[in-house]
């Protein structure tokens, strides 16, 4: 059972709510994925607008936990204020903390991230930091009060899959008791299975499902891949070998010559 900030969850897939062809397809995809946590954001409301309320009603009808994000924030103060406003609206201490450092790569500003995480943790937030796969940054985030880490495996929306499996493996090895969630860069179910096989606790993705030809079917496929990867990790994987090793017994071979 996955436990995030004291909350027990049976699904190890977290799904975003953006980029779907329609709200109805989003809702169906979330159900098909089995996800129990979905990410949401806050944006400026238009005068007389009801869009935010309609979206929020739909999400509330899905019986899932929400993880609000600070997507698009480029400074500590922006991210901290957005987090405080998200707590007010969504009624949760959970926050997916993003402090973006680069426009092209959407790479986290890890310095600002640690600073913002410390402020928010001191205010009782339960911070899910979107970070790189850097080990020392991960240590700083834990020092700042984070009890979950969410390293990227490739840039957001890139669909490139794990670019540095060694770094992900290193994080897993160093923080055996900390829930590790790969956030960003997953493009296909095999990528999700691959990081779960490394012992990661969960996967957070959005674009790969929302922009699939059939988002509902892809959501189901990701749900299965995450489960398969987890089961494989728990079952104990065979390590690669340099030489061939026969699987059929060699003793008892007939002699024909």
């Amino acid at each position, binding site marked *: 059972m996955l436990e995030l900030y004291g909350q027990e969850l049976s699904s190890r897939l977290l799904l975003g709510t953006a980029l779907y062809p329609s709200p109805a397809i989003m809702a169906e995809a979330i159900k098909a994925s089995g996800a129990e946590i979905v990410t949401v954001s806050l944006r400026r*409301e238009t005068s007389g607008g009801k869009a935010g309320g309609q979206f929020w009603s739909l999400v509330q009808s899905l019986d899932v936990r929400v993880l609000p994000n600070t997507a698009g924030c480029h400074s500590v103060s922006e991210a901290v204020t957005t987090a405080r406003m998200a707590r007010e609206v969504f009624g949760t201490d959970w926050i997916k903390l993003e402090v973006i450092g680069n426009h092209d790569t959407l790479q986290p500003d890890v310095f600002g991230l640690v600073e913002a995480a410390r402020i928010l943790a001191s205010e009782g937030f339960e911070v899910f930091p979107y970070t790189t796969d850097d080990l020392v940054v991960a240590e700083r985030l834990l020092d700042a009060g984070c009890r979950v880490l969410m390293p990227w495996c490739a840039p957001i929306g890139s669909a490139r899959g794990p670019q540095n499996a060694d770094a992900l493996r290193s994080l897993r090895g160093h923080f055996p008791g900390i829930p590790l969630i790969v956030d960003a860069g997953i493009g296909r179910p095999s990528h999700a299975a691959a990081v779960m096989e490394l012992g990661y606790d969960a996967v957070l993705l959005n674009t790969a499902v929302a922009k699939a030809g059939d988002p509902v079917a892809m959501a189901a496929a990701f749900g299965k891949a995450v489960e398969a990867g987890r089961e494989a990790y728990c079952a104990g994987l065979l390590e690669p070998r340099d030489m061939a090793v026969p699987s059929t017994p060699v003793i008892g071979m007939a002699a024909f010559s």
Partner: protein
Amino acid sequence: MKLTVNGQSHEVAAGTLAALLVELDFQGGWLATALNGDVVPAGERDRCSLAEGDRIEILSPMKGG
């Protein structure tokens, strides 16, 4: 009084944040508000006085990844 609401300039009569929401037709229990970068909880909007040049943000739930 001139205010900046969600990045746009507005000339308004409202003296409090609660009155501003009514004047500009922002409705709904799902809104989050901030005055000059500080969060104003829903329950404090009617006590939140506005002054010339204030910057107000009015946010609502949106899809996100």
